[in-house]
Each structure stands twice: as structure tokens, then as C-alpha cells.
């Protein structure tokens, strides 16, 4: 089946996940995404990815079901997170600090629909490659600038990664057990994904606007601002009621529910999340648990009362759940009509989740250096133009400079001799 946006070309100057994630979705929807890199300033996900893709014997062990320590990195074409963040993209090397490099960049922009970059706010402008310059070579170019705090405003010189943006936006403070516990925050760069979602939407919106009006444009996007956009109700609670944010752990502060939390189960670090919104669900829950005597106490019968007795209720409930296998309990609770789910780790999602398997959680994608491995697929299903993380290339992440011949040769018409010279002179 066709892709949604096969006729779109992106000059992709992003990195990390916050930057690289947006174009990842675009490649999965069919765009030709050309990731521009230079070896002296590589994406940390190439050079310092927390996960390294195993080769040879290590790879065989993992494929055979064995755990291994993180392998030693042998090249920049082995980053596990880089692979996850950049499937379906093409990759070229280009030194933007040279005049010839800038010229080539502008040539590429002249045949692109979108430029997206995630450097600190003034980098591209200082290189002479800001929007005003690029629109001279392509008047309808869409230029998405994405950095931590944005270009407009006071903090354009400040740098950010996901946790920085999460801290300032309020998302970190909103997550966790009530004080005196500190905030738990997010155990990953949630705002990298959120920023990536917003950037992908922005690129598509801007393409739509251009299709309808013929106009390109520049957008100044800020990862932290995306985070602020996810805190709206708390902001209104303060604006309207003067109430400051207070953490409530896993409880349901704004829809009456009890029990509502994560409860320990049998096994090492095993937990089940349960949400009970009414008395019928409560009776279903106690029924599955075999109606222990304490559940028959009148004071637990009504929702309102359970909400006020949550501390006690939670500890009594956990004395029951801790005797259960979490998956068995989940099955039984769901059969009885109670919203319940195991706190699943990565292995659970990849290997013992029949629903994710049915939906197609991951796809196998090849890379010329590491071979074929699983990558998460786009989780939303379009009936006529399904997305696919491998994109039109049906490929995993690009090795460094892997598509120089295609981009400089086929697209820009530079012959092999010239390309060799450009490589020799440290331009590509």
C-alpha cells in the first residue's frame, strides 16, 4: 500500500531523541528523510548511547535468548538508541563549517520541502544557514527550529535535554508520592517523545498549509513549552482556585476511585495497577480475591468511604495481591470487569503481550552494519496509507554517510570523481 507522504523530502539536522524523533515519524509515513551529520560533532546516541547493538558472538547469544552485558562499542554505527530513533532515514556526511559544505547544504535545501534542526537556538544562524538565508534558495521551504527553550525569549542560549525540560515545565514535580518524598519525575525523556510528536504534527500541518496556500514558513518550537502544554488543568486550578500542585502518587485526585494504585504481587519487583470507580467494580474485585473477611466491612462498601480510607485500604489490598501472580490476577480481574494491568517491563511488552503482538508493536529492520533487529513501529493504524518505521526504504537506521552516493550523486548530480574529491577535502 502507498505511504501517506511519499512525495516529501526532509533535510534533517536533528539529533538525540527530541530532535530525531519528529523526522522518524515522517520517514515512517513515507517521507524521504536525509539525516545530515558530521563526524566531529556526532549525535551522542551514536557515540555514547546507553545501549550498544551486539555483533558476532554477542548477537548470537542475544538472539538465542541470553542476557549480555552492554557490548563494547566498535564503531559509530552501533548505537541502540540511535537505531531506535532513526529508522527509515537516509544518512549523509556534510561539514557545514566549510563554504563548499554550506553550498551543498543549500543545494539539498533547494530540493527539499522541510528543514528541521535541533541545535541550540543560534547555531544555524551563525553558520549563515538560518531561515532567511535558506528561503532565498527555496522560497516555500518549511523550516522547523526545535530547541529546549525556543529561540524567541530570554533563554535562547540555555541548553536542555528531556529531563531539563521536564523539570522546568512542571511535569517532574507533578509525578511521584506526596511530600516529603521528592518528585519521582519521569524515568526517561518523556518530553523528547512529546517534542517529537509536536514536531511531526507541525511538519505535517505546515505541509498541509503549504498545499492549500502555496506558502512555506518558519516555526520556533520549544520542547519545554510542549511540556507546559501538558500541565493545563493544574494551571487552571491555580488560576481559578489558587491551589498549588500537590502530588498524590498513583491515586485519582479528580475522579473518585478507590482502590486506585499499584499493588505489589508475587515475584521480584512485580506490581499490578488497579482502578476501581464504583461499587460494582469493588464487589467484582473482592470476588476475584475470594471475598476475604476484611472486604466485607461495611465501611469499605461505598466508594465515598473507600476514598477517605485509602491508606488502610491500600495496605489491606496489598496483603492480598502480594500472593498473586500479577498476570493471573490481571486476567481474572479483567474477566470480572475491573480495569487492571500489570506494570509491564520491556520484556513483558515484547514477549508476553498478546495484544501488542496482534497490533504489531515492533518490526524487523535491516542495517548494513548490525544486521536485522526489532524496532518499535508507529502505533497508530491508518487504513489506506499505513505507516511503517522502515519507511519507503524498508530499512533500519543509516550508517554514518551511508547514502552519500545517492544524495550527492543521484539527487545532486555530482559525479563519482567530484564526490571523492569532496570526501578527501573533508567536506563530505
Amino acid at each position, binding site marked *: 500500500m502507498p505511504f501517506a507522504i511519499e512525495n516529501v523530502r526532509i533535510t534533517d539536522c536533528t539529533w538525540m531523541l527530541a530532535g530525531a524523533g519528529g523526522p522518524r515519524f515522517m520517514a515512517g509515513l513515507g517521507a524521504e528523510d536525509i539525516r545530515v551529520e558530521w563526524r566531529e560533532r556526532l549525535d551522542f546516541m551514536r557515540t555514547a548511547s546507553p545501549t550498544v547493538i551486539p555483533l558476532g558472538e554477542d548477537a548470537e547469544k542475544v538472539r538465542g535468548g541470553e542476557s549480555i552485558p552492554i557490548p563494547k562499542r566498535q564503531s559509530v554505527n552501533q548505537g541502540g538508541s540511535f537505531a531506535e530513533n532513526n529508522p527509515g532515514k537516509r544518512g549523509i556526511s556534510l561539514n557545514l563549517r566549510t563554504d563548499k559544505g554550506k553550498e551543498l547544504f543549500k543545494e539539498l535545501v533547494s530540493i527539499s520541502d522541510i528543514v528541521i534542526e535541533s541545535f541550540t537556538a543560534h547555531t544555524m544562524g551563525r553558520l549563515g544557514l538560518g531561515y532567511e538565508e535558506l528561503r532565498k534558495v527555496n522560497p516555500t521551504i518549511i523550516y522547523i527550529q526545535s530547541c529546549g527553550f525556543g529561540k524567541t525569549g530570554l533563554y535562547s542560549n540555555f*541548553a536542555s*535535554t528531556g529531563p531539563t525540560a521536564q*523539570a522546568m515545565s512542571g511535569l517532574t514535580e507533578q509525578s511521584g508520592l506526596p511530600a516529603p518524598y521528592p518528585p519521582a519525575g519521569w*524515568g526517561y525523556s518523556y518530553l523528547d517523545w512529546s517534542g517529537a510528536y*509536536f514536531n511531526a504534527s507541525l511538519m505535517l500541518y505546515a505541509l498541509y498549509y503549504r498545499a492549500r496556500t502555496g506558502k512555506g514558513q518558519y516555526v520556533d518550537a520549544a520542547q519545554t513549552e510542549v511540556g507546559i502544554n501538558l500541565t*493545563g*488543568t493544574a494551571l487552571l486550578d*491555580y488560576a481559578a482556585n489558587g491551589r498549588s500542585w500537590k502530588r498524590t502518587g498513583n491515586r485519582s485526585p479528580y475522579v473518585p476511585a478507590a482502590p486506585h494504585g499499584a499493588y505489589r504481587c508475587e515475584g521480584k519487583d512485580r506490581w499490578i495497577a488497579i482502578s476501581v470507580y464504583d461499587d460494582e467494580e469493588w464487589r467484582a474485585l473482592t470476588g476475584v480475591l475470594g471475598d476475604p473477611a476484611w472486604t466485607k466491612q461495611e465501611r469499605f462498601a461505598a466508594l465515598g468511604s473507600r476514598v477517605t480510607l485509602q491508606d488502610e485500604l491500600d495496605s489491606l489490598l496489598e496483603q492480598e495481591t502480594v500472593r498473586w501472580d500479577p498476570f493471573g490476577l490481571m486476567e481474572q480481574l479483567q474477566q470480572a470487569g475491573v480495569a487492571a494491568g500489570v506494570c509491564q517491563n520491556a520484556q513483558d511488552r515484547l514477549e508476553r503481550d498478546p*495484544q501488542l503482538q496482534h497490533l504489531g508493536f515492533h518490526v524487523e529492520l535491516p542495517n548494513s552494519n548490525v544486521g536485522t533487529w526489532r524496532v518499535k513501529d508507529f502505533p497508530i*493504524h491508518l487504513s489506506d496509507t499505513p505507516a511503517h518505521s522502515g519507511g519507503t526504504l524498508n530499512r533500519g537506521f543509516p550508517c554514518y554517510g551511508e547514502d552519500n552516493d545517492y544524495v550527492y550523486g543521484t539527487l545532486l548530480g555530482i559525479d563519482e570523481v567530484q564526490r571523492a574529491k569532496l570526501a578527501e577535502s573533508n567536506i563530505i
Partner: protein
Amino acid sequence: MASAPPSQGKGFLFDIKVLELADQRGEFCGKLMAGAGADVVKVEPPGGNPTRRIGPFYQDREDPERSLYFWHYNHGKRGITLDVRRPEGQELLRELVPRFDVVIETFPAGYLEGLGIGYAVLSALNPRLVMASITPFGQSGPRRDWKSSDLVSLALGGVMMNCGYDPMPDGEYDTPPIAPQMWHASHITCNQTNIAIAAALLSREQTGKGQYIDAPMHQAIAANTEQDVPAFVYTRNTFYRQTGKHAGPAAYPTSVQTVTKDGRYVHTSPGAGHGPELLVELLIKHGLGTGLDAPKFQDVEYLRRPEVASFTSNLMRQWVASYKFDKDLWKEGQDVGYHWAPIRRPEENPDDPHWQARKTFSEVYHEDIDRMLTHVGAPWVAEECPWREGPRAPHLGEHNHELFVKELGLPQARFEDLKKGGVI
């Protein structure tokens, strides 16, 4: 009446019309499209959408017209009522659909089909229609009909096992995994569904045809975590969750939260690629410690020794602890190149002149309470296509007459009958 002034420029989606039949699982989708310029019409049952019962409430008085949750997530939309369970309501929906580009719905899988207003019927009436169905587990599969909640979705999707507090020294946990508040299961799903809707609209520009979008929250969330899945794929290791920082293959002791005198926190992570010599630069700049100008304190290997790292880190922590949160010491970290930030409460952002310069927040007049309230505004700065501010969330059935009589052209008599019969 809409209260906020209309924005000067057109939005990105200026000619797109969206019909939203959604609860908390899908309202954020419509909100984002409204901000991007689409005309989003929210369709509620005549008794009001269930999300009008979600708190907090204005002045804590529970009332369908005072839900701050509803005000936020339905900002920028118009609102009509229509009972999809009634044949007359279904007929009315079929009359509406040809006038819209997008339908967003969050009924249980198969529900609208059962009423004769599923995608097959609606797309026959409007082949250009893009229809997105957001459900907990998708339109098919062995767990299609399982129940969920924001919490349960974040559990099954893997978010919770990445978030929480450090384990005890023996590696065991005495605290549960944490589901970050509030409503992120919906945020994650709506954000990705928005991508799919926009892609379908672009595809329609080429083909003239709409399409159907099946948006399972479970899969959307399962794809949201970061390094745990690749780590398992490539090394078959699972992660430890840790206080305020990335989960990882092993728990490591350095905290990235530094407490201030008044018990608040500064996020003091250096950020990827930034070495310990920058911390020494910061300490010297602020006259902290002695002897830090010795050459060994320029040697990165020396600085990485655990006892040296702990010495410099403690100097920094004592310094931060000797000031209150509002001293904004995070800026000093940023000045040497570290990715520091204040761990703010959401309500502490509107006063920041940086966000004021970007117009991140907007003041919206609510005529029914005669007050201006600070709402979240634009998530980006786009001069050509400014974010559409307002109008405030609709009252129940506020735009019934406007939409059914003025725009759809129903005779006044039929409109009255539908009202009397409780169809709208």
C-alpha cells in the same frame, strides 16, 4: 458567545472542520487541532459529556459547567448536543458528516458500527472523511474489550516501570512504580493520533479520499518509553527505575535533584557530553571550596574519581542548599553549559518573562464568572500560522442553534422538535 478575540492570521488547519465525539481519551486531540486553526465541534450527549464531571472544579463546586478539566481540554471548540443512541440522533449525525473533514471518536470498539454510524456508513456519505477511533486497546485483538484507565494504561504500556524511586541498596524496591500525573495516557495517544490525522489529510490532498484511523492507547503508550525497549532488544536486560532520572540497566547513586533551603529542588544534571570540569568552573566562579585552581582540578580523569566527584558535588549541594528556590541558581549551571533547570510546579511558569515573551500563556475571559483566567496558550511560535487563542470551552449545547439551524439549515420547527424530544 466566544470571548477571546479571533487571531489575526489563519491557523495551519484553517479550512478543516472536525466533529469530536470524545471523552478524556480523545479531547486533547481536538484541542490541539483547534489551536492549530481547525473548526472543532464537540458533540456531547444531551445530558453532558462525562468529562464535565472530572475535577478540579471552579471554586471546588462540582457542576457540569465548572469543570476546569473540561475548560482546559475543550478550549477552542464549539459545542453541540446529540444523542447518538436515538435514531433521530443518528440521522442528524449522518446529515452533519458530509460537512466535516474529520471525525474523532472514543466509543468502545464497534459501538458506532452497531448503531449504523460506523466508518463504513459515514465514509459512504463522505468519501473524503478522515475518521479516528481512539480506544484503550484498539479495534481488534484478544484484549480489545478489556477495561482501562489512565493508570492502567500507563502500567501496561511500560511507563510506570520506568518511573519511581531508587531501590534499596540490595536492589529491592520499597516503593511502587509511579504513573506520572495527569492524563498522560491520553496525551501520548492524542499526540500520535494527531500525527496520523494530519498525515491522512495530506494524503487526501493527493488522492481525494479520506481513511480510517485505529488508535490503540495501549500500543501508543508502549511505544513511548525510551531506552528500556532497545536495551532489552539488544542485550536482554531490564531496567531499574530511579528517583528523578532515567531508568537504567543498573541503579547508580548520583542524585540529579539538589535540595534548596526551602525544601524545593533544582535539577542539576550536567547533560549529555558535559564534563566535570564545568562544575569546577562553577565552583571557582562562586568562590566555593579552596585549592580548586590546582592543575589536578582541570584533569577530567582525576575529577571522575568517586572521592573527588563526591567532594565537588558536595560543595555544589551545600551551595544550592544555602539559598532559597527563588534564587534561581539553575541559571548559574546553565551559564557554565550544564543542563540545569528549576523543578517547578506548573503554576510557577506563567510569571517567567521568558514564557511571557513567547506568549506561552493567554488570558481568557470567562463571562459566566466574569473573570480572566490564565490558560496555556501556544506550544510554538509561528508568525505565519499563529496558535488560535480561545474561545473558552463551550457550555452544554451552546452552539446548537448556530450549527443545526444556521449552518446545517434545519427548519426551526424540526430543531425545536429535536430539542423537545431530547435528541439534542
